[in-house]
């Protein structure tokens, strides 16, 4: 696996988890 992949994948996954967390907050706080 390339160094780029190892470096970038955790950052992208972290960003996606943050986006999901915000969307989940919106859903569970107001639904």
């Amino acid at each position, binding site marked *: *696996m390339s160094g*780029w992949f190892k470096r*970038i994948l955790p950052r*992208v996954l972290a960003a996606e988890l943050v*986006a999901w967390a915000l969307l*989940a907050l919106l*859903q569970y*706080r*107001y*639904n």
Partner: protein
Amino acid sequence: MHWVNWAVVVGYLGYVVVDSIRRARGLKTIEGYFLANRNLPWWAVGLTVMATQLSAITMIGTTGQGAVDGMRFVQFYFGLPVAMVILGVTIVPFLHKANVFTAYEFLERRFGPRTRSLTAFLFLCSRGLSCGTIIAAPAVVFSAIFGWPMLLSVAVIGLPTVLYVVIGGVQAVTWADVKQMFVIVTALVAVVITLLVKIPVNPDAALSIAGAAGRLRVFDFSFTLNEQYTFWSGIIGGTFLMLSYFGTDQSQVQRYLTARSVDEARSSHLMSAFWKIPLQGLILLVGVLVFVYYLFVTPPLYWNPAADRAVAAADQPAYIQLEREAQAAWNLRYELASEIARTPPERRAVPRQQFRAADSAYTAIRQQALAKAEQVTGGPARDVNYIIPQFVLTQLPLGLGGLFIAAVIAAAMSAVAGELSALSTCTVIDFYRRWVRPEASDAHFLKVSRVATAFWGLAACGVAVFAASLGSLIEVVNRFGSFFYGSILGVFLLAMLKRVNAAGAFVGLVAGMLAVGAVSFGAPQVAFLWYNVIGAVTVVVVGLVVSEFARGVESVRP
């Protein structure tokens, strides 16, 4: 529309076209025309990647979908970030280092001219028509709202785009896209701020009301192949779709081939990986807030003015009756929405429940009204596409309405420009230079490229003008297009495996398309996002098996 709004629209269009043509100076080679001499910075490429994907349908259709269906469409993009990282270590470095003009050119080096020509031909057919629908969608809305003939609406969107792409090539497309993305995001943020100011309750109460109506339901974890947007279809089917789109569709491949280096090409994709979901969330949130806004301001019976006029003229008593019923249901819903806003958060359960029932009653009357419109006009009402344009033109402050209309045109132009540039590249590189005239001067190829761009631009405008009468044809082509999207991804995956040969790739491609076709006709309830998974997996499996078999036959041959 007020003349100030028109001035904003015309000023913006003029600026984009003039600036793009200015950038065409010194253009002498097809490398410059199609790939900007492979010298663009990552951030400009990243913005053009996002702009090409974002069309006017996103600006008016997706926002409208947010108003009637809520936020759940955002799940469609859940596979995108992961797909971008996978592409960064697979197809992007492969294609960038191969020094090709088109993705299909790379396939010939690996599997011969047959596979290249078939994939390139499929791309030209599907994108040629889809380019027309990208222009047609906003043009239909503009025609209905401004009372323009369809030809004029198509010309306003199509002709400036064709002009700057023909003259400036990909350089003009990219720098126009940078400006377009800026206008689009500015308009969206400005509309959200305006909505938050104009909605007569505080943001917490507004979101509570939207949530009570189910508009803030994002996640659907049910595992069913029949539901279009679920968490799983987004994560699995969406990843395959995004891998196909960004990895193998020339309209996207061409974007990152213009980057200065492999690292810059990868970085351009990371912009989408980080920002696509928030941007799509913002677009849907605009729709959700417009829904809340119209809980406090009486909406028209029909958002589509043409449908409204048609029903009123065809059956006045029914129209008046529907309007009266809708008003009564809206009044009750308004009272209950106000009640939620007045009640402290911890005691909102009862009014929220009552509001939900009132919202269902109002929606049922609107469904009756839409059924009436469809009966009168003889076609689908597509009312949802008119919600945001009507809101923008009647409720936004002076100037901001013009900015939003400019953003809708910008979104259409940027998507069309990317497609036109890709269609022209594919025509010239994969067919003209490959089969008709392999050796000629750069000046000759540049001239042919401009003619090809103009041809595809005018063809797209022609398709757009006749989109209504071509409706079923376009649907068939779109459906057929979905048969090979995942399959083409499968061929590119096979290209990266050394043990696969040309026969395996070609048979695999045909098998993948047939498999998706069989599912599409045999089990039409399966959501289209899964087609990409089925296509790609079939191609890879069949391709590997046929390659092994062909090798076995070769080795036993005397």
